[in-house]
């Protein structure tokens, strides 16, 4: 497993490094506080449908997306808020979408599990587990065919390892040397079942069987994720072909907000350990302080700013109008 190097390198550009990780910190806090607001809005019964929170997994989305260009593609999952934000989505339009409002990214027609945004290369969150593996691979096929140097990242949870279509497209991607990165977010649980109960063999073995470049990384360490992602993205962009990255992480909440009594499938002690010892925001905080890149006042200020942004986004979404009913038949066909 790859972990980030903590020793200062000789001659490194500390100003650029500092800016990069302060930005990454802000992105991770944005996701955490976005999800806090989702939880709040959902439990106040202001949000229709289901809410699958990304809290605990922030280092994966941010570590990967910070290695991408704005015109690179991503596909996301039912637990996709973090991916969308990390790729550049704005919280107000996201909250509007979550509440089914016309100002949302999908004019309210997609909701929490379907946020899509061409401007940030977001091909869409997908509510079928493994449902976007073809789309991401197809975007990589188009990039290669059209001669652009775009890269596609396919985010999926370890639950998608049970879907056969993943292996079909991984085979195609390797045969055709496509610029696609399969990012397996192993948050340990396929819904309410530990992944070891559903997954024979090893996760990486699935990729190496096709000859695909494969790596695993501590998904709670944004610097480690970013380091290996940057290498794999650079490799894909320069014609080196697909890659598979296993990010070991943890889902702080239940499968969805309503999944409260979880002890039949995981212990409170286990949750506590991940949240205290391996929290991705705390891991980065500790490193930033060690490097002298930020002091406690800076962290407080960022948290406060981000919280204000999220609260304003919620207010915007609550007061935004629903689409008019004649919208229901629009966009069935282009």
């Amino acid at each position: 497993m790859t972990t980030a190097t903590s020793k200062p390198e000789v001659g490194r550009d500390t100003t650029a490094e500092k800016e990069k990780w302060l930005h990454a910190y802000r992105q991770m806090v944005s996701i955490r506080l976005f999800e806090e607001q989702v939880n709040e809005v959902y439990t106040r019964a202001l949000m229709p449908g289901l809410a699958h929170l990304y809290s605990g997994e922030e280092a994966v989305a941010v570590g990967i997306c910070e290695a991408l260009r704005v015109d690179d593609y991503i596909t996301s999952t039912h637990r996709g808020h973090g991916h969308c934000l990390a790729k550049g989505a704005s919280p107000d339009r996201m909250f509007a979408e979550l509440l089914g409002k016309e100002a949302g990214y999908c004019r309210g027609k997609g909701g929490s599990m379907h946020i899509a945004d061409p401007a940030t290369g977001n091909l869409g969150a997908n509510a079928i587990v493994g449902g976007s593996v073809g789309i991401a691979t197809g975007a990589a096929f188009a990039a290669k065919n059209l001669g652009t140097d775009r890269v596609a990242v396919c985010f999926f949870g370890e639950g998608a390892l049970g879907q056969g279509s993943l292996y079909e497209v991984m085979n195609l991607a390797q045969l055709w040397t496509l610029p696609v990165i399969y990012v397996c977010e192993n948050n340990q649980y396929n819904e309410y079942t530990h992944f070891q109960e559903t997954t024979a063999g090893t996760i990486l073995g699935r990729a190496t069987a096709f000859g695909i470049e494969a790596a695993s990384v501590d998904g709670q360490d944004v610097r480690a994720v970013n380091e290996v992602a940057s290498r794999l993205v650079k490799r894909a962009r320069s014609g080196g072909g697909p890659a598979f990255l296993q990010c070991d992480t943890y889902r702080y909440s239940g499968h969805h907000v309503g999944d409260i009594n979880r002890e039949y499938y995981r212990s409170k002690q286990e949750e506590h350990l991940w949240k205290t010892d391996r929290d991705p925001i705390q891991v980065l905080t500790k490193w930033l302080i060690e490097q002298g890149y930020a002091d406690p006042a800076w962290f407080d200020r960022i948290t406060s700013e981000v919280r204000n942004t999220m609260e304003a986004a919620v207010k915007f979404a609550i007061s935004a109008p629903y689409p008019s009913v004649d919208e229901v038949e629009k966009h069935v066909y282009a």
Partner: protein
Amino acid sequence: MPERELTFAQAVREALAEEMRRDSRVCILGEDVAEAGTPFKVLSGLVEEFGAKRVVDTPISEAGFTGVAVGAAMTGLRPVVDIMFGDFITLTMDQMVNQAAKAHYMSGGHWKVPMVMRTTLGATRRSAAQHSQSLHAWFSHVPGLKVVLPSTPYDAKGLLKAAIRDENPVVFFEDKMMYKLKGPVPEEDYTIPLGVADVKRAGDDITLVATSSMVQVALGAAILLEKVGISAEVVDPRTTWPLDEKTLIDSVKKTSRVIVLDEGYGRYGVTAELAAVIAEGAFYDLDAPVKRMGAMHVPIPFSPPLEDATVPTEQTVFDAAKAMCKPS
């Protein structure tokens, strides 16, 4: 100079070649589509002209390469996927139904999926239950997809060119028994808009609404009917969605009798929908109940006499129409 004739297969190939020359974004993906030109040889010669980058042989992974086509269509290509037998669409269902059909709507109109799936339908090729079904009703049931059922070489070329130029996912069903059927096809560029029915033969006494393979059956039955003094009109919807309801209803209002013919299963199928549309639109003009004829509700059997019994024929359509027009 006599009009040029092409086979149905040649018309499909010519449509693809013309669109690939016109638009460099059009590409083909499928099993044995390149050098082999598919088992039906419909695509022979295309890889030689357009190269392996645009006529792409895939592994036997229908879900995989259909999914790739969806993503490629969203990001700048106009893929045409080849699903060798219509029975194999089962393997592509999530990609077509949950992905291709919904991407435009779910994204609030932001993403588009301009792709075509070409596949086949039709029994009587002695291929048994997993290579003989006509499953176009399934895709016709899904909003976001368009479904095309050409019945002549002329229609095949014009409709396929329109399908490739369409901004939506279009499923194009070809009757595999019709590939050698010849008919006039102009050399010049033309398209046939999706959603416009065609009156294949005018008549006064009964309307035969027929799709795909059943159009030729209906035309044959009409000749038999003419010999007994019954004038049959044959109307081909050409697309099950969008559906040209007006042409169907207008014809039935004129003739007052109708048989709906489609090679798919009757139950919950295309004949059920067309019959309902006609009943709603022309009920007070009908002199007889709407009659439906489709494949029997059985898996298609292998044994030739059994298989032949499962689908409507010129004779069974003639008998049914005659009984409706001249009850004895």
